[in-house]
C-alpha cells in the first residue's frame, strides 16, 4: 500500500458496550436458569456446565470416557479426513483446472457428488465401514473434498491469460505453464480452501458422531440428550465450538507463515 495505515483507536463506549454485551449474555443465561424461568431439565446454567467440565476432566462416567479423550478422538477423525481431502482435493482441482482430459473424466463424477449433503452418506458409510473410525473419515473426506476441488480449480482458472499467452509464445509446454504459472497463481485460492474445508469437516464430524459413534464430542452431546442432562449437551457444544475455533486460529497462523512471501 502506498499510504501508511492509520490506526484508529476504539472509543471507550464501544469497548464498554462489547464487554457489557458478553456479561449480559452470560448473566442472563445464568439468571433465567437459576430463577427457574427455564426449567433446569431443558437448559443448564453456565456455572453447572463449568462444574461438569471440571468433573469430566477426571471422571469417565456416565458416558464412558474423559472429556479430553472424546475431544482427542474427534480431532483425530477430523484431522485424518481433513488431510485426506486436502491431499486428494487440491491436486485434483489443480489438474481439473488446466488439463482438459482430467476435467473430462472427473467433472461428471464431481458434479454428481457435489450436491449430495455429506450427511446423506452416513447410512451407506455404516453399511460399508461400520461405525468405526474409517466411516467417519469417509464422511468428512467427501464433504471436505468439494471445496478443495472448487477452490483449486477456480484458482487455476483465474490465472492471468496474458501470462499464459506469453509463456506459449516463448515455447513453454503445457506442463511447464501448469507448474510455473497456474499453480503459483492458484495458491491464494488454495489457501482460502484450507479454512472453508476445516469448517465443513468439523460440522460433518459432529453430524457423523451424532448418528454413529461410541465416543467423540458428538457422541457426548447425544449421550447428554439420551440421559436428559442438558449440562452435558451444552458442555459438548461448547467444547466443539472452542476446539473448532482453536484449530481455525492455528490454521490461520500456519497460512500466514506459509503465505508470507506470496500475498503482498
Amino acid at each position, binding site marked *: 500500500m502506498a499510504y501508511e495505515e492509520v490506526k484508529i483507536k476504539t472509543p471507550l463506549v464501544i469497548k464498554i458496550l*462489547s464487554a457489557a454485551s458478553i456479561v449480559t449474555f452470560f448473566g442472563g443465561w445464568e439468571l433465567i436458569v437459576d430463577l427457574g424461568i427455564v426449567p433446569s431439565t431443558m437448559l443448564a446454567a453456565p456455572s453447572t456446565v463449568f462444574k461438569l467440565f471440571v468433573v469430566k476432566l477426571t471422571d469417565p462416567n456416565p458416558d464412558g470416557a474423559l472429556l479430553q479423550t472424546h475431544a482427542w478422538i474427534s480431532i483425530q477423525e477430523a484431522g485424518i479426513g481433513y488431510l485426506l481431502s486436502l491431499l486428494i482435493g487440491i491436486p485434483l482441482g489443480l489438474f481439473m483446472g488446466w488439463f482438459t482430459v482430467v476435467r473430462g473424466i472427473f467433472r461428471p463424477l464431481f458434479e454428481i457428488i457435489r*450436491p449430495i449433503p455429506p450427511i446423506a452418506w452416513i447410512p*451407506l458409510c455404516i453399511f460399508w465401514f461400520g461405525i468405526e473410525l474409517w466411516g467417519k473419515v469417509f464422511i468428512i473426506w467427501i464433504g471436505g473434498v468439494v471445496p478443495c476441488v472448487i477452490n483449486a480449480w477456480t484458482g487455476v482458472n483465474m490465472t492471468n491469460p496474458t501470462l499464459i499467452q506469453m509463456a506459449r509464445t516463448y515455447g513453454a509446454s503445457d506442463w511447464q505453464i501448469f507448474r510455473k504459472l497456474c499453480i503459483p497463481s492458484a495458491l491464494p485460492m488454495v489457501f482460502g480452501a484450507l479454512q472453508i474445508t476445516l469448517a465443513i469437516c468439523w460440522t460433518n464430524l459432529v453430524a457423523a458422531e451424532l448418528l454413529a459413534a461410541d465416543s467423540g464430542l458428538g457422541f457426548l452431546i447425544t449421550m447428554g440428550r439420551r440421559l436428559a442432562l442438558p449440562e452435558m*449437551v451444552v458442555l459438548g457444544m461448547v467444547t466443539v465450538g472452542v476446539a473448532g475455533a482453536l484449530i481455525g486460529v492455528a490454521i490461520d497462523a500456519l497460512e500466514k507463515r506459509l503465505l508470507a512471501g506470496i500475498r503482498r
Partner: protein
Amino acid sequence: MFKAFGKVLRNEFSLYVISFFCFLLLWDWVAKEQILGRSLAPPLDVLKELHRLTTVKLAGKDLFGHIWDSTRRVFIGFAIAAVFAVPLGLLMALNRYINALVKPVFDIFKPMPPIAWISIAILWFGIEEASKIFIIVIGAFIPCLLNAYNGVRLIEPELYDVIRMLGGTRRAEIFYVSFPAAFPAIFSGLQISLSIAWTCVLAAELVSSRSGLGWIIIQGMRLTRPDLVIGGMAIIALVAWLTTLLISGLERLICPWKRGIKEGYL
C-alpha cells in the same frame, strides 16, 4: 481412424459422456458382483425403487409428500433466518454501537456447528417440526449475517467518497451505495445458507422424524435397503440443486449489476 478416435478422447464433452457411463457401469458391476456385500444397489434398482415410491405410500405419504415435507422445512427455516439475519448484518455493519453489542455474542456462537444444536433443540422443542426448523434457522443464520456484514464493510471507500462529493447525506450513502454494493455478497450468503439448510434438515431428519427425505434414507438403513438409501440421496441432491438454481435465478432478476468475476463455474 485412430486419429479421429484420439480426437474424441481429447474432447471434453465426449469425455463427460464416457466418464458418466463408465461410472454407471462400474457401479452396476460392483453392485451385481456384491463386492461391497449387499450394501450397494445397482442403478436400475434405485430407479425402480424411486418409481415404486411415487405410487406406494411410505408412512402415509408418497415420494412427493416426503419431498414436500423436507422442502417446506427448509424454506420456512431459511426464510426466518434470512428475514432476521440480513437486516441484522446490515445494521451491524452500518452502526458501530449495534456492532459492539451483537458481535461479541455472535462470535461465541459462530464456531459452533449447527448440527451440534440438534440435541438441545430436541430437549427444547421435542421431535416435532419446531426443532427441525430451529436447527435450520441456526444453520442458515450465520452465513446470511456474515455475508451481509462483510458485504457492507468491504465496499470500496472511493464509492462513499463519490457520493459525499456529490453532496449526499448519510441516508443517500446507505441507500445508493451500501445496499446495492452489498447485494451480491448477500446473495452469495443466501446460497451458502441454503446449502447449509439442506444439510441441517437432513441431519435433523436422520436423528428423529417421521417424514421427509432424511427419514427415507434412515428407513432404508434400518431395513438394510441400499436402493432406498441411494434413491433418497439422489432425490436430495436433485432437490437441493433445483433450489440453488432458484436462488441464482432470483439473484439475476433482483441484482443484474452483479459484477461477474467469472461467469461460469462458481
